[in-house]
């Protein structure tokens, strides 16, 4: 059993598991932090960005000044943003049989894999995952395609050149593999390969293994996966949450008795408690708006935004903010808000019961109805007519490199009355803000990450008790900035195995059993013999038939009747030789009784020696030695075959045959 680790990002995993005869890709995350190295894509002509000075080497060489621009001491690539793909060289991805997706954030690299690697398998995901994943991809493609940029930078990627660049460009990994965003056509083609599954549904893969999605409690339709054969069980835990937010709660019980538990997607901010962060978010929002400022919330179009809107729904009246407009701007804003209301079966119990009242499960429906929350596909069109300040704007992309958020950063960045509140934990907010410096607006960092923290992981592991834990290397040591916080790492016994990008792990686990079925007529013919109370044995002579990873014992064919005519022999007619087998022996030899029997049969001068493994019976007169051990008996006599046979028969008297 091997695990190929194609991504180094602990929350955007992409691993391939070889288990029995199957090759299973676990998630297909796309590391978008690479875009932080690029200049933002402004929606409207932006003189500040277009007039940035080109960057030149220390010696004055300016051959890169078209590709690299300098802004407030940082250097950015002036090109269409590119993404860091999972490793494609470590394993031939055309051999991947299936891809299991655990949540919509972990499928963003799917088009790269399904469309460009010769992949011919099936992708499994739940319906909300697919629908919301499609929205995220659509939004991403839209953000990038609607601001066409002719320039594509490649000179800086030259290894010799990259070495000369300032950080963080210098340290960027695998830049040669970075790719531009996929197209909508590729998205559609990739999504067409997905087969929808429901929680606890059992899916057979070639008869060899069975995969099952379980609720993971993190997002709408998010799942953990069980991959099991008859005797082995691998659990894949990715992006799970034990908090009470909108999705169905996490199914922990089904993870019990795993041989291997692959653990990814823990919280990225283990020191921040989501409740506290929501509090910070609300207070800062209220303070800004009260002073006449605007609030910008860079966010994804689905996920935490639902919970934030629900909190605000309860909060705005108490904070006297009911007249403040909330705008949600995304090409998929409308679909996202509507989708959330129709996936009732994937929601937590409270929200499910609302559907029977009938009421919309999320209160943002009421916010929309009362005109407190308005949504627009982009800042163009209706929005510019309705726009009223002070206001709160939710919009993407959280990297601040593309999407409508770029416009608001430019618009509001100069006033200290305004605030940008970061709630998505995926990007470093300081790096995200770098191309906007100097910035007058206030920046608040309230990352809300509901995924498991280390205390919860430790409880989970105690509860489900896997034999082995495998996790990204980042989880096996305290965070670099807080090296004394030994509580911020996975603590389990035996210690977790860690992996890093481009590593192949042999999982510490050997398969020992295989299930074989016996055909009823063969079973009928067996005559078990009880050799110990509760244990019966029978010998079986059969043909082992293996097809589709299923093994069946069939009755041996009758010896072929000699027929006349052609004696052409086809290979399939080969009949295995059915030799008459010697009977099997069982039981143990009680030494004292054996000696008595020997004496009865005329042997004298018998000596018994105890050895580490059993006994040696010495027939001194006959110069013969009988070595009795737990699983063997040897009669050593000097070429006296008659004596040997006599002694053998005496030994056999004490054993059972069948």
């Amino acid at each position: 059993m091997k695990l190929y680790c194609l991504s180094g990002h602990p929350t955007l995993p992409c691993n391939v598991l070889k288990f029995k005869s199957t090759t299973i890709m676990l998630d297909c995350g796309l590391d978008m932090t690479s875009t932080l190295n690029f200049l933002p894509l402004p929606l409207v002509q932006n003189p500040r960005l277009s007039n940035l000075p080109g960057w030149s080497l220390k010696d004055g060489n300016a051959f890169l000044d078209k590709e690299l621009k300098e802004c407030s001491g940082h250097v950015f690539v002036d090109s269409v943003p590119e993404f860091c793909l999972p490793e494609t060289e470590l394993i031939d991805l055309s051999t991947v049989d299936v891809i299991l997706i655990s949540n919509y954030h972990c499928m963003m690299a799917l088009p790269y894999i399904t469309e460009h690697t010769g992949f011919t398998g099936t992708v499994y995901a739940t319906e909300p995952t697919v629908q919301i994943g499609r929205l995220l991809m659509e939004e991403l493609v839209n953000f990038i395609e609607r601001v066409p940029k002719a320039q594509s930078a490649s000179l800086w990627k030259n290894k010799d050149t990259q070495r000369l660049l300032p950080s963080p460009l210098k340290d960027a990994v695998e830049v040669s593999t970075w790719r531009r965003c996929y197209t909508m056509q590729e998205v559609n083609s990739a999504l067409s390969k997905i087969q929808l599954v429901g929680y606890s549904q059992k899916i057979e893969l070639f008869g060899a293994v069975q995969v099952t999605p379980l609720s993971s409690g993190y997002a709408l339709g998010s799942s953990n996966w069980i991959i099991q054969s008859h005797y082995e069980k691998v659990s894949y835990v990715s992006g799970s949450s034990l908090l009470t937010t909108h999705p169905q709660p996490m199914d922990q019980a089904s993870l019990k008795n795993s041989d291997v538990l692959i653990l990814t997607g823990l919280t990225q901010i283990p020191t921040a408690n989501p409740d506290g962060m929501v509090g910070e978010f609300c207070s800062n929002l209220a303070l800004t708006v009260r002073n006449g400022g605007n609030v910008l919330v860079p966010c994804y179009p689905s996920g935490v935004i639902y919970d934030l809107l629900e909190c605000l729904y309860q909060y705005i009246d108490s904070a006297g903010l009911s007249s403040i407009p909330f705008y949600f701007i995304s090409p998929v804003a409308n679909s996202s808000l509507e989708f959330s209301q129709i996936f009732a079966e994937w929601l937590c119990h409270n929200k499910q019961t609302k559907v029977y009242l009938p009421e919309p499960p999320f209160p943002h429906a009421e916010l929309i109805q009362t005109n407190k929350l308005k949504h627009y596909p982009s800042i163009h069109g209706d929005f510019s007519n309705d726009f009223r300040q002070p206001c709160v704007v939710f919009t993407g992309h959280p990297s601040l490199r593309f999407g409508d958020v770029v416009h608001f950063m430019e618009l509001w960045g100069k006033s200290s009355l305004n605030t940008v509140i970061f709630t998505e934990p995926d990007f470093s907010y300081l790096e995200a803000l770098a191309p906007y410096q100097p910035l007058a607006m206030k920046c608040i960092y309230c990352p809300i990450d509901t995924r498991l923290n280390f205390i919860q992981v430790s409880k989970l592991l105690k509860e489900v008790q896997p034999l082995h834990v495998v996790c990204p290397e980042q989880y096996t040591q305290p965070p670099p900035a807080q090296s004394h916080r030994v509580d911020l790492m996975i603590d389990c016994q035996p210690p977790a195995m860690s992996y890093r990008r481009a590593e192949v792990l042999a999982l510490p686990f050997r398969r020992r059993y295989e299930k074989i079925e016996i055909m009823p007529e063969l079973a009928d013919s067996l005559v078990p013999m009880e050799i110990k109370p509760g244990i019966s044995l029978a010998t079986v002579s059969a043909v082992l038939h293996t097809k589709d990873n299923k093994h069946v014992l069939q009755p041996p064919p009758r010896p072929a009747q000699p027929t006349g005519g052609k004696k052409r022999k086809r290979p399939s007619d080969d009949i295995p030789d059915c030799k008459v087998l010697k009977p099997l022996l069982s039981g143990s030899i009680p030494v004292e009784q054996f000696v008595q029997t020997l004496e009865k049969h005329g042997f004298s001068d018998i000596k018994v020696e105890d050895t580490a493994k059993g006994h040696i019976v010495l027939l001194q007169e006959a110069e013969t030695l009988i070595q009795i051990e737990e699983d063997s008996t040897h009669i050593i006599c000097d070429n006296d075959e008659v004596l040997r046979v006599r002694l053998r028969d005496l030994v056999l008297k004490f054993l059972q045959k069948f």
Partner: protein
Amino acid sequence: MDPECSRLLPALCAVLVDPRQPVADDTCLEKLLDWFKTVTEAGPSLLLLQENPCLVELLFRVLKAHDPRPRVLSFSLRLAGLFAAQEDCFQYLQGELLPMLFGESGPLGGAAWTAPTVRSGWLQGLRSLAQHPGALRFLADCGAVDTIFSLQGDSSLFVASAAGQLLVHILALAMRGPAEGHPSPQGCDWPACAQKIVCHVEDSLRSTATLQVTQALNVLTTTFGHCHSPWTQGLWVRLSPLVACLLEKDPIPASHSLVDLLLSVARSPVGSSDCGLWETLAQTLSHLSPTQAGPLALGILKLQDCPQALKTQAFGVLLQPLACVLKAAAQAPGPPGFPEGATGDSITVDTFLSSKSACVGLLCQALAHLELLQLLPQRPSPWPQAPLLRAAVAILRFCHGSAAPTSDVGGHLCAVLAGCVRVQRAALDFLGTLSQGTGPQELVTQVFAVLLEYLTSPDSSPMVLKKAFQATLRWLLGSPKAPSCCDLDPHTQLFLGELLPVLRKRLCSPCWEARDSGLEFLTQVTRHWGGQAAFRHALLASEVPELTGQLLRDPESYVRASAVTATGQLSSWGLYATPTGPEHPEVQQESLFTELLHILSTDSEGFPRRAVMHVFTQWLKDGHADVAEDLEQFVARVLQAASQDLDWEVRAQGLELALVFLEQLLGQPGSRCPYAVALPEAAPPATLAQVLQALCRVQLFEFALRALFDCDRPVAQKSCDLLLFLKAKATPCGGPQEAGASPDVVSVEAALQRWQAGEQGQPLGELEPEAVMAVLRSMDLEGLRGMLAKSSDHMEKSPQSLLQDMLATVGVLGENEADCY
């Protein structure tokens, strides 16, 4: 016993023994016993029994009943005990009844004994009975002491505890009289009964079963706690070697009880004269685990006179966990820490490392003990204020995850304590208490820094945040004033600059507890510093006053109440600014008075309305500008709103406000408040007639008279006091107004009668001062006050009433059987 009760008693006794009658509930039987206790204490029991033969008959019949009900049996045992407490009565009952009740032929062996209430009744009966030497002989004869021994291990904790206490009582009784004095430790001159009990205790102390050791230690603890006669000294001399033996066992059995015993002995007269005791205490301190030794150390430090060395050792035990923390947190060898003996020994470190719960438990215990100790006059001196402060700050940093220790123990503490709310609360409480002392400026700066960390942190739980606000308040108020003037010192001003934005954010928190604690803090700090220029300046520059006004409309009633108090306080100091939120900027801002009055008349919850009344009363006392503007109008509107309130506390507070108003018009009652606030200059002393006119204009009379017949007694009482005060003030200068039968008085009296009858709907209408005074003179207010002073159940408390009730319950039930109603 009064004849009426005597008359009812036979019927009641008959009911009690009749198995067909339902037994009155336990409360009635308890009340009955209480009554019998007062009766037996007041007079001879023997006479009582002779005059009421039904009582003895009751006891006999209960005993002879085939299947006695446990409650009644228990009652009978206790009743018999009460009677037999007097020696002559004991003699009277001893012949037959007492052995049957308490001896082996009684309930002891029967089926009823399985009920804990019967066992408890048996013990309590004996406890009452054991008052004289005769009783001792009786106990010996009927073998009761052995039964008591076995009941010490009873499954019911109440029974077990009562058994232990009874043993102590019997021991004390046995040692009274001939043995009083200084018996020899060997016990040859001890009375047999005492000898038996002490031997039993000795055996138990030698036992290997922890339960038995615990029982023996508990008996001894009670003995030394209650009996201070000289014989206890002999007892201690006899038993202390056995107690000392316990210390040699590993683990020490029943360590909690052992600590209790040693402290009990140390507090008794035995302690002051026995040097060996101090050695035992010292030995125990060093043998017990850090968690077990904590309570003992605290107990020792509370003792009035004990050797200094022992005190030092005990203080060391208490300080050890904190010393450990300090050592673990130290980046480099720092300033001198705790005194010798408190240098974080290895056992404490082991406890810290053993488990999270052990570590948290030990730290919380140490903090709580030191907090208690700090407040005591006999706290150790010199008090290590600076290391304690450092330790408290270090613990809070560990809990917050902001400490960066280099040692292994530090790393472990960091992992265990991060986010631990229990320790955070204990440490913040402790830090607050430490504010009574001073500390080097650099440490005080650290204290404020860590407090600010907690106030700022989004991870602080609501309870922790509240504690952090409380500790901050204590440190702020304890901070020194600048030497040059009476304003705040520069450090405090600097801190305020950082604190107010945090407070502002907390007032916007979506968590109501956070908003509430923020408001409470603001109220307190304004109360003390409202006059300080630096504070006023910082507060007015922040947005806090506006936000506070905004919270008057909070959805949570507690927050509204706190906001009312806070705005009231701010307004008193001229610090209140009407909110200028983005909401309704077009609405013209009303005065705070109007807004609070609106809350008083419309808020659906009681807390905010009560808070408004408190604020108004305070404003009236302080001569608040809004009030002084039109005093009568203010009082009239408040009283009108309060009179219609459904909450009695609001109405009572309304009377409080009316009284303040009266006092301001008429002067203080008597001379009991020579330092009271003087009347505003604008209102010169008015004549009585003018005052009465004013009272009529604000409709104070109607409010007070209506309250006089309020269905809630405290309101009526307050009103009565107020009217009496008014009457006393008005009568001496009654002048020309004489009681007359003017039509006004008649109508007022008629209205009052209707009010008294519960018809409160009708108003009094316009009142003339003369009519009011006439009504007041004609009313028996003193009588009314006397009646109101009695508790509402004074009628129902009498024994007749109890007996009648018990009989009535049965009677009514009897009728029901026939009536099927």
